[in-house]
């Protein structure tokens, strides 16, 4: 087992070091795109293969592998130890499996980028950090991975760092995450302090010790609830929940494979993983569970309303991710952690597929953009549009859609990510279209695709928890239903505006997008297949047995505990809820079809007209950025300018300058002593000798 863990952990690290060092010091190496990409992909595929073999040979016996003691300070003894159990294995499979597919995809997507080697080095480093996070046996090693994925996220959001906007987005992600990490640290301190003061002996925040009932019993109710709340705040940072979700939409500044891997499939689910890992502890803090459930529900609803109003295809998917993460937190809040992990898994499949699909679309639209720039139909971003100066058509001619008689419905500037300039792509990108459609239907919750089972299970668990006497869970359930409806609508809109209808980019008759190369379409197909069938791993109790429940659940020997229920929901009600979930998906998709399928962009205008201020409110993301700007950023920046800057100038600089001035003045005062006459110095020596001799004779005795 020790070898297996090393074989899982080390290849991504080696890949990162190799690509990073060679790329840094050997400029000739940077051009070998196939070598770089192949090496990086293999470094993730190998851990996947190893994880599969471990998975197949796993006998429901958690194993802990200890390599060495990392740090030893008084009662704190932290080991570099990793844990192989049902939960960490499942997460490892998701991370390496989806990760390998996205590495493969990136080979084609990043083709020609100057930072090709850098990209793959970062991506491999991310996988290493993420594996540390999910395999860690104690909170400290987990935190190492937690910070590592944050760092890689920062590096990859700001990957194209020459654009200030991207750097700002990277900074925002890093700083907002830091707030959550701070809470995580405090929670660790709190637990260490509470446990070591309650019992003698060393403590390394090991899960096997920490989560044992006797250790949890040592903790007071208040301490435990506070620790869980702080861990949840840490999770809101990484997993983009209210109030720390604001970084995730901006994180779309990174390359699209990054959005798919880090900001949809893996890193943002680490908060859910943490809660599932700590489930025995979380279950002892029902008050905090209510906070988790309500925050999740509100985040899900809010993000879904914003997603409807966005035009950037990646932003729609980003808000959709926030919303789906909200669903997962709802499940955690009602004590159904294994369902949250189930949704993490299905979400990794369909959101990974959607993001990679959007990347394929953007790739194609970039081709269109280049062609249009080349022909001089749109102004070039690189400032050499006048190359074809004299035959540049007039704007009115360009804005005519050659495929139909009326002017183009959208006359803003061309943007390869803007759905308003897309439309009709199904004719040019068949593979992308079909995979995107399957993933869209999956996330909308159409039976029997993956999203249906996981989302329905979340809603059912919320209902069940409410039925069991926690009335707030009914509120979560209702909000979840509304969000599910909105999900079907905004994802339908996203698909319809992108792939259906008429082409909306200029000169569409001549300039056509092209399907992406096989390295990009293969991952799409695999992920689409998984999002079609992945749901069968967690069938509801009515339809059969849930594999994922058997695998993870504590009652079957797994590490994930769940809330106990006294009252059982009747089978009839369960059937009803199942049908309700399916009906909501169908209704939502039909609404989307009736509006955006028939009327395309006019449906947006209609919605804006109908909802008025509400639409504006949602399209500006509920003014969260403005709120933070007014309450945090402005006071901090203003305080820095008005208080700290003067203090720096007058206080700090003043002290330094004052010391310098003092030394200079003393020196100027003493300067005349240095006359330059040798005889003066000799006189001083003589006087000195006389004084010394006198002192020795008459005083010193």
């Amino acid at each position, binding site marked *: 087992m020790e070898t297996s863990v090393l074989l899982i952990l080390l290849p991504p690290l080696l890949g990162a070091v190799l690509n990073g060092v060679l790329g840094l010091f050997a400029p000739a190496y940077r051009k070998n795109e196939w070598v770089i990409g192949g090496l990086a992909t293999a470094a993730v595929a190998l851990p996947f293969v190893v994880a599969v073999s471990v998975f197949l040979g796993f006998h429901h016996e958690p194993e802990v592998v200890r390599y060495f003691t990392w740090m030893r300070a008084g009662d704190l003894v932290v080991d570099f130890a990793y844990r192989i159990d049902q939960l960490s294995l499942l997460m490892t499979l998701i991370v390496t499996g989806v990760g390998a597919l996205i590495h493969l995809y990136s080979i084609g997507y990043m083709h020609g980028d100057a930072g090709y080697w850098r990209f793959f080095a970062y991506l491999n480093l991310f996988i290493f950090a993420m594996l540390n996070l999910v395999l860690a046996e104690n909170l400290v090693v987990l935190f190492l991975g937690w910070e590592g994925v944050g760092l890689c996220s920062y590096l990859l959001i700001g990957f194209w760092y020459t654009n200030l906007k991207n750097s700002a987005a990277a900074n925002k992600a890093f700083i907002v995450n830091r707030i959550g990490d701070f809470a995580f640290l405090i929670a660790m301190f709190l637990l260490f302090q509470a446990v070591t003061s309650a019992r003698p002996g060393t403590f390394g925040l090991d899960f096997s010790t920490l989560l044992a009932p006797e250790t949890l019993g040592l903790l007071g109710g208040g301490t435990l609830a506070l620790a869980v709340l702080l861990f949840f705040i840490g999770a809101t940072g990484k997993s983009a929940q209210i109030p720390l979700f604001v970084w995730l939409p901006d994180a779309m500044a990174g390359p699209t494979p990054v959005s798919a891997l880090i900001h949809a499939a893996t890193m943002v689910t680490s908060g859910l993983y943490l809660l599932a890992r700590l489930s025995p502890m979380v279950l002892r803090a029902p008050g905090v569970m209510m906070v988790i459930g309500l925050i999740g529900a509100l985040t899900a609803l809010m993000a879904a309303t914003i997603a409807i109003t966005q035009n950037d295809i990646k932003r729609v998917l980003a808000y959709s991710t926030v919303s789906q993460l909200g669903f997962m937190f709802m499940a955690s809040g009602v004590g159904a952690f294994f369902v949250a992990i189930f949704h993490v898994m299905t979400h990794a499949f369909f959101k990974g597929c959607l993001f990679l699909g959007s990347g394929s679309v953007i790739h194609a639209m970039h081709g269109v953009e280049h062609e249009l720039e080349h022909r001089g139909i749109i102004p070039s971003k690189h400032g050499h549009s006048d190359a074809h100066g004299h035959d540049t058509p007039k704007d009115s001619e360009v804005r005519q859609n050659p495929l139909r008689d009326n002017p183009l419905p959208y006359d803003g500037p061309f943007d390869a990510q803007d759905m308003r300039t897309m439309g009709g792509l199904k004719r040019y990108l068949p593979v992308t279209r079909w995979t995107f459609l399957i993933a869209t239907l999956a996330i909308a919750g159409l039976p029997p695709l993956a999203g249906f089972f996981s989302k329905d299970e979340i809603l059912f668990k919320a209902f069940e928890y409410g039925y069991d006497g926690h009335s707030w869970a009914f509120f979560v359930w209702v909000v979840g239903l509304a969000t599910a409806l909105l999900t079907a609508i905004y994802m339908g809109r996203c698909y319809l505006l992108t792939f259906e209808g008429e082409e909306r980019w200029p000169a569409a008759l001549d300039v056509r997008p092209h399907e992406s190369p096989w390295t990009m379409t293969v991952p799409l197909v695999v992920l689409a297949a998984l999002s079609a069938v992945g749901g069968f791993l967690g069938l509801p109790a009515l339809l059969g047995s849930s594999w994922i429940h058997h695998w993870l659940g504590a009652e079957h020997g797994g590490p994930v505990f769940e809330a106990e229920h006294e009252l059982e929901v009747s089978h009839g009600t369960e059937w009803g809820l199942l049908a309700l979930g399916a009906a909501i998906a169908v209704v939502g998709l039909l609404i989307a079809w009736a509006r955006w399928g028939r009327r395309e962009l006019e449906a947006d205008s209609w919605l804006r007209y109908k909802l008025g201020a509400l639409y504006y409110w949602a399209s500006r993301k509920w003014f969260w950025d403005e709120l933070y700007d007014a309450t945090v950023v402005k006071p901090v920046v203003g305080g820095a300018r008005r208080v700290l800057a003067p203090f720096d100038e007058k206080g700090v600089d003043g002290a330094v300058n004052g010391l310098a001035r003092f030394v200079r003045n003393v020196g100027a005062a003493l*300067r*005349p*002593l*240095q006359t*330059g*006459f*040798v005889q003066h110095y*000799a006189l001083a020596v003589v006087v000195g000798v006389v004084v010394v001799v006198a002192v020795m004779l008459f005083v010193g005795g």
Partner: protein
Amino acid sequence: MAVALNWYLALSAVLFTIGVLGVLLRRNAIVVFLSIELMLNAVNLTLVAFSQALGDVDGQILVFFVMSVAAAEAAVGLAIVIALFRNKETVNVDDLHLFRG
């Protein structure tokens, strides 16, 4: 008949004082230089006197060291004075204050 030790020491003190005053007060660099030699020889005289009075030869040995160092010093010092005169056309120490602060 032996002269008392005190006389030697008194002569040495007088010579040394003349030397010190010469170093401090004279303006001609060569005279300053000679005054230094005078001080050295005053010390030599003390050493020899004590050596003879105590019947110990160590003091006389030390005098040879002082003499040889004084010879080396004279060679270097005179060379410096000559170099000074070539450059400045003066050996008046009051005109030499390049290190004034």
